[in-house]
């Protein structure tokens, strides 16, 4: 069952303090299936903390998070990590690929962890690498590919399990304009064709312009920019 209004993931009144720092101070969020929502705001405003709460990685001090009709707070740690593996995908700014594995093994890893046989996992991995235009890098290790290529491999890995929500935290933060743009084009195209919703954290407007709508986080409070005008 979906939350009211057909939202897939809804958070309300999120608060999270780290010692004296209020990282989140009453933040809200909602996303529909297949929607791309940018989370913008200055550095230190609470964007990553919001993403971590939404993904069940960090537990908020108060507030509620409903995913597909389930309250994340009432789930056990084991249930939450199962949910992350089955329904969520992740892309971060740096260092997510395992350096000892080849690129195709990296992309296949989430499937292998879910118990898929090696051959089948790598075949699916290669399909995703084709969509991200990095299938020719299969046998290379992450240290042997460029930043932009590595990030496309990471996007392929995040989508290989057919997640319903892709969490991307500054996915182009370490790339130049041209490579960042290519990653965003391919990421949004792939996510749309897989009907995955994307929570896209970025402080860059040109990256946010790939989204359907944006919210702005300032001092731990969120503002839905659709309601501004």
């Amino acid at each position: 069952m979906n939350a009211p209004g057909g939202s897939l993931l809804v958070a309300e009144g999120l608060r999270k303090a780290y010692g004296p720092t209020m990282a989140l101070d009453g933040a809200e969020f909602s996303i529909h299936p297949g929607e791309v929502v940018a989370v913008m705001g200055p550095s230190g405003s609470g964007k990553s903390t919001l993403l971590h709460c939404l993904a069940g990685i960090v537990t908020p001090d108060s507030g509620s998070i409903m995913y597909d009709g389930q309250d994340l707070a009432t789930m056990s740690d084991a249930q939450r990590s199962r949910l992350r593996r089955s329904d969520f995908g992740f892309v971060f700014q740096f260092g997510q690929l395992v350096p000892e594995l080849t690129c195709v093994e990296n992309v296949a890893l989430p499937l292998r962890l879910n118990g898929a046989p090696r051959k089948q996992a790598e075949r699916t991995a290669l399909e995703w690498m084709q969509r991200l235009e990095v299938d020719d890098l299969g046998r290379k290790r992450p240290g042997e590919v460029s930043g932009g290529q590595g990030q496309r491999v990471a996007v392929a890995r995040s989508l290989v399990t057919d997640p319903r929500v892709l969490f991307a935290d500054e996915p182009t933060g370490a790339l130049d304009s041209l490579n960042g743009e290519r990653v965003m084009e391919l990421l949004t195209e792939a996510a749309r064709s897989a009907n995955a919703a994307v929570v896209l954290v970025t402080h860059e407007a040109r990256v946010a312009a790939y989204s359907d709508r944006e919210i702005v986080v300032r001092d731990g409070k969120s503002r839905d920019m659709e309601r501004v005008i």
Partner: protein
Amino acid sequence: MSIGHTLLGLLESGPRHGYDLKRAFDEKFGHDRPLHYGQVYSTMSRLLKNGLVEVDGIESGGGPERKRYAITDAGITDVEQWLATPEKPEPYLQSTLYTKIVLALLTHRDAADILDTQRAEHLRSMRILTDRKRRGDLADQLICDHALFHLEADLRWLELAAARLDKLKAAVHT
């Protein structure tokens, strides 16, 4: 920039004479381009005709600049609407926005809201350009990129201005 709306906004805090309006405008917004008396006069007679201001008194022996003007309710509504309507995003619109923000602060309106409205309007334009770039050929991509980089610069300015509103508010009221 709309001189009419700016003069109206300046009148909101109380009636002023023509010469006083010109001085306030030059001081706050006319840094490199002070108003001519002729501009003040023609603008005020247009505002009068449209019922946005009324004459509140005339100093003896004076020309048009000696008239004292007061804003009407219709004038206040007009300022309100102008402030609330986002500018069409184009490069170098900052001076208009700067004027809007200062006037909003002067008249105790929500300047942060004006910045956010503009921010949303900019991002809307950027989405359209990004989409066009995606479908277009290389020429389209370069043209759209040019616009996108300019809009991004505007947007950064909007964020910086939002972060400095408290300081600006203090400065504007001195």
